[in-house]
């Protein structure tokens, strides 16, 4: 696409956003329910949220880069970048967030059958089904491949037994994409990437109360859950081959790490100026630390840009998301430490209206999980050693 075509697209996009994105949807996200997650039981917080979601859904803008057949708008990478830029320019909220968009979607686009894509991608794009991800188990955290949730082959279905942990929003999800062992003899090639309904008999969830006081994660239990092997013609219940789910899982972990890394600049912006404004008298030593942080944050911003540019043309090292995840999450933790320090006793408030219910301290605590979820910093460093630096025995 030529530059002039792209500029025409920009003008068109700007006009469309102007007409379709209500002012309320250009306000910063304050509460969890400011984001629409979709699903069978979803409700809209207000009319603005509903109309913004529906406008985007009908235009394919909940998943702009997906093909039109699957509910997207079929935008080229350059067009998708323009849309992102124009949305950022007016602070537009995402019309729909979900693990279906970030995680399952990319996996299906890469590994799914045509039938799976037609059904599941459209459901995701239209916000009809909310997905959760069943990866970690109580005994399988960093060493994920040791997972033991087992699916016994019963001919036309599996019977799944086991337990998952850290399942994000399992209590609100409609379906799960889940790593299930289907061959006990084969560690890496004995895992199947299964899709099934959380309303199935034998599924139970229990939210986990975190140090932040919130419960975004659940324990999820499977007790003789019957998973049919097929949901119709060309719609198998597993993504990829049976027993080859680890390939899908690894592919997805790359995506997850990229997402958590904040490579898109999501949570790693500068803070010095804002904190100095908000808190007045800043200790000179703290000011120096803020400046050091801002240097690192601006540098990381350039890295994120470079990383995304390189991904687009296949120039990035395949293990680079691990480096991005490591650097981005460590940076974000530091960011919140400094925000707490600058905020003083105000930032300690856990329930006040002034802090919107303890936002500073709860967010600070939440960031501690950044370098744990999706692979710990230590695992990221192991992977860099092995796959990028080619160090022995790593």
């Amino acid at each position: 696409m030529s530059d002039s075509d792209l500029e025409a697209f920009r003008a068109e996009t700007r006009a469309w956003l102007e007409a379709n994105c209500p002012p309320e949807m250009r306000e910063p996200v304050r509460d969890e329910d400011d984001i629409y997650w979709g699903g069978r039981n979803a409700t809209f917080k207000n009319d603005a949220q509903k109309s913004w979601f529906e406008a985007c859904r009908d235009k394919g803008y909940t998943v702009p880069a997906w093909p039109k057949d699957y509910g997207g708008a079929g935008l080229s990478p350059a067009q998708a970048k323009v849309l992102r830029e124009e949305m950022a320019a007016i602070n537009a909220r995402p019309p729909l967030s979900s693990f279906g968009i970030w995680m399952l979607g990319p996996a299906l686009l890469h590994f799914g059958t045509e039938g799976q894509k037609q059904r599941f991608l459209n459901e995701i794009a239209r916000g009809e089904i909310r997905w959760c991800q069943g990866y970690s188990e109580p005994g399988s955290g960093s060493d994920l491949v040791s997972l033991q949730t087992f699916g016994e082959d019963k001919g036309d279905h599996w019977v799944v037994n086991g337990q998952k942990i850290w399942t994000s929003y399992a209590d609100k999800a409609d379906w799960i994409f889940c790593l299930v062992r289907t061959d006990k003899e084969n560690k890496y090639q004995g895992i199947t990437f299964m899709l099934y309904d959380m309303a199935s008999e034998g599924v139970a969830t229990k939210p986990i109360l975190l140090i932040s006081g919130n419960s975004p994660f659940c324990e999820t239990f499977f007790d003789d859950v019957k998973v049919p092997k097929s949901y119709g013609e060309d719609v198998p219940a597993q993504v990829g081959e049976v027993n080859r789910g680890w390939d899908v899982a690894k592919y997805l972990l790359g995506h997850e790490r990229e997402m958590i890394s904040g490579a898109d600049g999501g949570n790693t912006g500068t803070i010095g100026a804002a904190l100095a404004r908000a808190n007045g008298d800043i200790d000179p030593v703290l000011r120096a630390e803020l400046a050091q942080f801002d240097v690192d944050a601006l540098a990381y911003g350039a890295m994120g840009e470079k990383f995304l540019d390189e991904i687009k043309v296949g120039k990035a090292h395949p293990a680079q998301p691990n480096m991005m995840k490591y650097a981005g999450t460590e940076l974000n933790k530091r960011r919140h430490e400094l925000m707490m320090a600058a905020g003083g006793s105000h930032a300690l408030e856990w329930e006040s209206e002034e802090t919107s219910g303890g936002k500073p301290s709860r967010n600070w605590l939440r960031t501690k999980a950044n370098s744990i979820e999706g692979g710990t910093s230590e695992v990221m460093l192991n992977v860099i050693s092995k796959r990028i630096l080619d160090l022995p025995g790593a």
Partner: protein
Amino acid sequence: MPLYYDDDQTMLADTAGQFMAEEGSIKNQLRHWRDRDCKDGFGHGLWQQFAEMGFTGILVDEDDGGLGMGQVEANIVLEEIGRNLTPSPFLSSSVLAATALKHGSNDVKGRWLPSLLSGEKVYGVAIDEGRKHRPETIACKAEKSGNGFKLSGKKDFVVYGASSEMIVVAARTSGSDSDRDGVTLFAVPQDAAGMSHDSVRLVDSSMASHITFDGVELDGDAVIGEVDGGREVLDAMLVAGRVGSAAEGVGVARGAMDMTVDYLRQRKQFGKVIGEFQALQHRASHLYSEVEIARAVTIKAAQLVDGGSEKADLMASVAKAKVAKVAGLAVREGVQMHGGIGMTDEYDIGLYMKRDRALQEFLGDQYYHTGRVAELSGY
């Protein structure tokens, strides 16, 4: 513009990389000249070769006989200089002085550019006064005298000053020491009466001068740009020089890191290769991550300079500060992970540490630039 090299830039990086690894290697240049106690601190032969490759005029406009390329291209050469610790007047002559000359009259260009392009001469820049880089304050004075000026004062850290045919001097022509206005740039020839060099060898084996100007008479055509209006040109020089020295620092960091990771793959202790120890793996991986980030922000800053962006100044300081932090980490980890052998003169890793130290100070260290990031951001 995407943050990776286009085809031409990739080709330039290959060419410069190969050239520097061969002709500009530590053995052929740094050690060669150092071990002969060379008073220049660099090889004129290699500078001639730079000219033959076109590098000397990389930032000089095509109309003026140069390659008319940008900061990204100059940085590509500088990264290879850094990686090979190649002693070279490239940064002073072809980035800083060349940026100044870009703003000169046709007479000024005609007088100085040809012998820069041909590699016959090298040029220096005299900005710092005192031990730290504080270009906001310029006390060195140039007073009106007849049709010209009379220059008095002192300058420090003039890299390769004693070998420079001409030195670009930032001097005060009006106002008080810390005024932004009232600064003028002069092209001072080596043989100017009243200019004396105290040339000293630095920790990295390069040479730098303390220069005293004792009523140096300059005629009007020594002025580069406008009288009293030199600050803008100086700012352009500083941005180009800072981003350039960041690129050289990236090269130093990568060179030290590559050497160290290689060593981790070979050195055996306790019956195994030390690269198998997780304590070392994690530190090496952290270093890799930091070096990648430092390199990304340096490329970003160079692109902003070439695009004439108003953010270029801020990002130049970000790049300089980040690279200083990261290159410092790379050389310290390099020496430590090499163990005892890292302390020997025979091994090259210590040379990286020395070069990094000198480069850190050049055009402002990490503390100066970190503070500048805060100021430019409004706190």
